């Protein structure tokens, strides 16, 4: 009983710290000591810590490589080029721009992960929308939502997918084949809802403010490397090469021309892009969640996890995952749930649908973050939380239902190994 309380307290402390970030300290500053506490308290035996770290290591390596890959794609001007392209193609129509942003954000999320969409693509979309003089709000919300819903397709699309990928026992290609239908379906659902909810912002066609910029020279080299890397993910795995290596080779191919020019400064930027404190945070969180999972709380969640992979079982798994993701954020939710459903690839994918789509409900990741941001905003102009909650309440249940329904169909059409 005391052990459970200690485990939960440490987890709450680690997550609370990550949400509030006192003095702007990295989240790992609480996660690593937290992991040390649960190990010292004997909640997780040393050999299990080693096993957990060993299991997470390829995933975290993959994560770092994908972060670097996205950073380099940005440095090569891939996102800026995409921005000028969709800006010109939209011809001043906010509706056409929304369609293009949907396609762009879905593809960027799928190939380069949700971090790339939120951190690198969103500012480009904002600049594009304001550049052609349309109201940017629907397009910004589209980036935020598609960073989550668009991350169903590939194991690389979301850290949650990376965490579940190894446990699922599915190959890269089969994972994508099973998820392509749910991916397309939920993006369509989002689009239909966005067109209705933002109808007012999308009606007025703007007269062009600035003359359309001549599209810059396409960064062919970087685009080529990204395409080859993507193909490499699918091709390398059957011959026993972990996708982390492919991502690393892709990143290296993009880094070489830049490193050759400015070795020191560029190397520093690459290390920053790999976000080592974040990687340390994932290890620490993994150990802390394991302490909670191995106690009565884990048993309780295990009890709630459905046993069968019928339509209702999948739906229950996705719902449970979505609720947990909104309570504590989807990273700990994934770490908690995936080992409990690892015996069934179908359930793993259903959990992923839940943890990936679920965060759109609170939009800022979890209830805790939502409350914390309200506290922070009490002094200045507080933005209404009503709008994104309304958007979440409409999109998330619809996407969960459609996502799980199409996953169920995919499992029958594509089949499991």
């Amino acid at each position: 009983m005391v052990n459970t309380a200690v485990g939960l307290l440490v987890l709450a402390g680690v997550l609370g710290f990550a949400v509030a970030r006192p003095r702007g300290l990295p989240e790992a500053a609480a996660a690593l000591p937290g992991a040390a506490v649960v190990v010292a308290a004997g909640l997780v035996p040393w050999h299990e810590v080693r096993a957990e770290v060993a299991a997470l290591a390829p995933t975290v390596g993959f994560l770092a490589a994908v972060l670097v890959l996205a950073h380099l794609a940005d440095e090569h001007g891939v996102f800026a080029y995409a921005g000028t392209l969709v800006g010109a193609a939209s011809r001043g129509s906010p509706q056409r721009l929304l369609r293009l942003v949907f396609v762009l954000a879905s593809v960027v999320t799928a190939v380069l992960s949700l971090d790339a969409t939120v951190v690198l693509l969103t500012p480009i979309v904002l600049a594009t929308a304001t550049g052609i003089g349309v109201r940017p709000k629907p397009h910004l919300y589209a980036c935020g939502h598609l960073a989550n819903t668009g991350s169903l397709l590939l194991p690389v699309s979301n850290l949650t997918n990376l965490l579940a990928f190894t446990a699922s026992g599915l190959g890269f290609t089969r994972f994508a084949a099973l998820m392509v239908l749910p991916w397309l379906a939920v993006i369509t659902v989002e689009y239909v809802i966005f067109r209705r909810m933002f109808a007012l912002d999308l009606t007025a066609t703007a007269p062009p403010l600035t003359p359309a910029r001549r599209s810059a020279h396409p960064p062919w080299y970087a685009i080529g490397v990204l395409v080859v890397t993507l193909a490499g993910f699918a091709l390398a795995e059957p011959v026993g090469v972990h996708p982390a290596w492919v991502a690393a080779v892709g990143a290296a191919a993009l880094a070489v021309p830049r490193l050759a020019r400015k070795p020191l400064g560029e190397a520093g930027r690459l290390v920053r892009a790999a976000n080592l404190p974040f990687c340390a945070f994932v290890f620490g969180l993994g150990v802390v969640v394991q302490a909670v999972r191995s106690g009565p709380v884990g048993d309780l969640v295990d009890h709630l996890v459905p046993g069968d992979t019928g339509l209702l079982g999948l739906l229950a798994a996705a719902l449970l995952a979505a609720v947990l993701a909104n309570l504590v954020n989807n990273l700990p939710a994934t770490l908690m749930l995936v080992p409990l459903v690892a015996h069934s690839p179908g359930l793993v994918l259903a959990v992923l649908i839940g943890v990936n789509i679920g965060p759109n409900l609170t939009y800022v990741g979890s209830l805790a973050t939502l409350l914390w941001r309200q506290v922070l905003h009490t002094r200045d102009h507080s933005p209404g939380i009503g709008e994104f909650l309304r958007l979440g309440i409409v999109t998330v249940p619809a996407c969960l239902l459609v996502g799980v329904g199409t996953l169920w169909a995919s499992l029958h059409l594509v089949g499991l190994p």
Partner: protein
Amino acid sequence: MKIVIWVTEGTWTACVDAARDLPADHTVLLHVIDADSIEAAEGARAGLLGRGLADNTATTGTLTAAQARLLDAAEARLGRPTQREARHGRPEREVVAACTTADLLVLARDGDRGRLGPRSIGPHTRFVIDHAPCRVLLLWPEPPPGLETMPPPPHRPRRA
């Protein structure tokens, strides 16, 4: 007469064109950055747990620059010197607050103009029309609809 022109993306040209003919000795061009737009970009960053991301001040910077460009374009189209009022917050409340000393507010319909009725005016505009402490000039962003768009009178059963 002091007039305030509410400049919004997509519909501002109609407002500026109408205001050009008004006898104003003091013209204010008003634009409001919707706080929800900032939160739409920043909230998604906050959702990425563990990445060590702070709020991106560039979001507000980009929106402020776009606001300045829009007000530049409006002033150039109006062709006379104006006072500019660049605000950010909740648009409907900021607009009402900006009209406290105005004699006339010029604004455009921003609703669904494909189906004329209550929804041809959006909720922000509706709020401003209800609460503005001055006269209001409400414009169609495009030429006004013809008489044929008026629905037939409601059918009344004839008394026996």
